[in-house]
């Protein structure tokens, strides 16, 4: 069943890549937006 390994690796790379990419974009957008919003409107608890 060595022929299945490329599919397994590709599936995992797609998942990890998509998750990492989306997480990075979300974090960077949050940082960018935080600079534009007054401090009293961005207090997380």
């Amino acid at each position, binding site marked *: 069943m060595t022929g299945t390994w490329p599919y397994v690796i590709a599936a995992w790379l797609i*998942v990890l890549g998509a998750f990492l990419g989306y997480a990075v974009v979300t974090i960077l957008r949050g940082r960018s937006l935080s600079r534009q919003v007054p401090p*009293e409107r961005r207090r997380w*608890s």
Partner: protein
Amino acid sequence: MTTQIASTDEGRPSASAPEAPTSTGSRTTRVLGLATLVGFALLVLFSFVLSPADDNQGDAVRIMYIHVPSATLAYTGCFLTTLGSILYLWKRSQWWELVAYASAEIAALFTAVTLATGMLWGRPTWGVYWVWDARLTTTAMLELLLLGYLAVRRLPAEYSVRAKRAAVIGLLLVPNVIIVRQSVQWWRTLHQKPTLFSDGLDSNIEGLMLFSLFLGFVVLGLFFVWLLIHRFRVAWLEEQIADTGLDAAIAERRAEAGGVDAAGRATGPSAPGAPTLATGEAQP
């Protein structure tokens, strides 16, 4: 996941108020993020090293440890979107509307991942990447519905208009999820029956394979919550900026029309201490 504004004195941060964060992160998200990273390392270890190959599917079964949890969390995101949509339409709760919006985007990501991993699992087991099978087709329709929700939510319009239109689409998500989930029971399909709970509480796998699958649920579940908190806060910030922009535009129009009161003070939302349109809270 709460978004609160610290107590202020006429809109100004009080002396005891903590310093405002410069990102959407907080102690909770940092702990969750660390747990997620450790969890992903463990999941890779269990999926690739410790769990055995399947008797029938061989190593292709290792895709299951991310495919099945991704699908389940996509359904969870759809459920949250429908719940948030109902509560927005009923109570006009902006908090729940933003939960629905954030959940829909994350559900779209998880559904796309489910489709991609399913195709890569299908090729070595079925011999094809895609067939117009009931499960695959209904899942693709779910993804299209989520993308439609997101498109309508981002249309340029007043907040209440786009939120209401998106919420109506959000109501359709849970019925669609039920169709996706039951498709392998209602129709003859190439897709296998559910791995877990297809026959009562019995599962079709056991031992380390079962443990690895549950670990996948836990790790992707942690990641889902972490993402949801961050995406909710991003959505919150987006709406704050939209409010500020609207306030500024109205103030500009009033200034153009000679917007000063009898005492010669500036009027309108940009005036010191005046409430904002969206929140009714005093501005510094």
